[in-house]
């Protein structure tokens, strides 16, 4: 799935996009594009800090002595600054080579995943944090819609032949969250399962690919192993952060999950973006 198959009527407009000012100027300069790309990466790191800190605070980890409203208010200008720079540099990157993203399934996932990511950061996290943990009905509904959209984005990401490996970054981020903030027993069990998966991957490559030289078989095994691993990590994440030792208000659990989702949503956008140049341009 990509924009070319969904919006074929856009193609003539995109052809002229590359001729609009200041794009030809940027293309003819040897240092303009590198600078744009560097700004995109730098803004990306600022976005990282501005989304991870409030997300963790909603999970009630990290700077727990600082009110969530303080954290959210402090990172807000950096979040907006990063988003603006990312949007401008991103638009330039698209305009300089529209066909590349037009046909890219990863780019479609990126744009699609931007919607829940923005809803979560600018809408839900802001609402909960500014109220120091109070989850309003509106925020709850917005979060549910964002979660559904994100799930759809992940599904498209994972079923895209060329871009699917990028979903491993989201699995890894979820894995890190469980390993960093989960209970000891959870960490040990997940760690052991991860070890088994790594050994399985090693042996499936050595025993199946090398002697049989069946590349397609190994690709299929890789694909299914990655999906199984993602499901396992997802289950661990949900179980670890929805269970409580003390009777807690449901909204606290909801806040925890929203904090995690807010972080993972931006990882999804980044991972999809990274895979634009790496996969093929096919459907």
């Amino acid at each position, binding site marked *: 799935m990509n924009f070319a198959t969904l919006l074929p009527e856009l193609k003539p407009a995109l052809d002229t996009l590359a001729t609009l000012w200041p794009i030809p100027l940027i293309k003819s300069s040897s240092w303009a594009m*590198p600078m744009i790309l560097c700004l995109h990466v730098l803004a*990306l*790191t600022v976005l990282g800090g501005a989304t*991870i800190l409030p997300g963790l605070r909603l999970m009630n980890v990290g700077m727990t002595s*600082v009110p969530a409203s303080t954290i959210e208010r402090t990172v807000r200008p950096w979040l907006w600054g990063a988003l603006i720079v990312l949007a401008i540099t991103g638009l330039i990157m698209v305009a300089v080579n529209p066909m590349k993203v037009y046909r890219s399934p990863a780019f479609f996932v990126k744009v699609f995943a931007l919607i829940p990511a923005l809803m979560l950061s600018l809408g839900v996290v802001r609402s909960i944090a500014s109220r120091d943990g109070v989850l309003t009905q509106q925020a709850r509904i917005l979060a549910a819609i964002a979660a559904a959209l994100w799930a759809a984005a992940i599904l498209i990401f994972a079923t895209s032949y060329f871009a699917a*490996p990028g979903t491993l970054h989201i699995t890894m981020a979820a894995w890190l969250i469980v390993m960093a903030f989960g209970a000891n027993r959870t960490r040990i069990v997940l760690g052991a399962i991860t070890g088994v998966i790594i050994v399985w991957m090693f042996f499936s490559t050595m025993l199946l690919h090398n002697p049989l030289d069946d590349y397609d078989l190994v690709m299929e095994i890789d694909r299914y192993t990655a999906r199984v691993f993602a499901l396992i990590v997802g289950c661990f994440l949900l179980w670890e952060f929805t269970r409580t030792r003390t009777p807690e208000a449901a909204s606290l659990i909801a806040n925890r999950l929203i904090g995690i989702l807010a972080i993972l949503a931006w990882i999804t956008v980044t991972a999809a973006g*990274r895979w634009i140049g790496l996969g093929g341009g096919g459907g």
Partner: protein
Amino acid sequence: MFHDLLQWLQDVPGATDGDPSTSWSQQLAGSLHLWALTEGTHVVSLMLFAGTILMVDLRMLGLAFKGVPYSTLNSKVLPLTIAGFVLVTLTGLVLFFSNPVHYYHSVWFRAKVLFIFIAAANIFWFHYRIQKSLPEWDNRPNPPVAVKVAAGISLASWIFVIVFGRLMAFVFFECESMPPGSFGYAFAECESEMRAINEMNEEFSEEATEEAGEEAVDETVEEPAEGAADEAAPDAATEATPAEPQE
């Protein structure tokens, strides 16, 4: 300096029957997904590492989290930064291993390593000298000048590290295009890389002349077939162009 060691690292470990194109380094460089996943992890981990170090540095500069004691960020945020740093470094080492000789001679990579060392020295200086006076300025929204200097050096050096890392993908200052005797040529120790490249080119041209000698014998037999192939080629060329807009 390390050119030969890195050439060995690129050619030998994992190679079967002494064929350098089968080494682990080459396998990684030619891999369909493993290199891409490593590079992607490198960039995504940057969000964790650089994103959190930004916040800590901003506190040290007195620009953010002014009401929060520095010790809170030190104990709650810095562990995240360290975790991010471990990820970035591990993936970075794996990426380096995929093409060690090329990266070793890259002007951008060398500048990147230089600024990593500057950032590390800065961290040691801050941790072992300035942090001792922490109780005096922990709660101050406006920390002392030395603290701000450390934060400024930290921010600047990591920005350079990221920028130089991004620029590594561009071919501005490759050894082949820099004049011998220029600063860039010396900084990248191009002499050893150019020697290796010239040796490789000589080997290829020797093989090519050998093959050409063999082909010259074959060509006299195949000429009639070539004439037929030339007639077929213009048709293929005209067929190719109408197909493009239909993509």
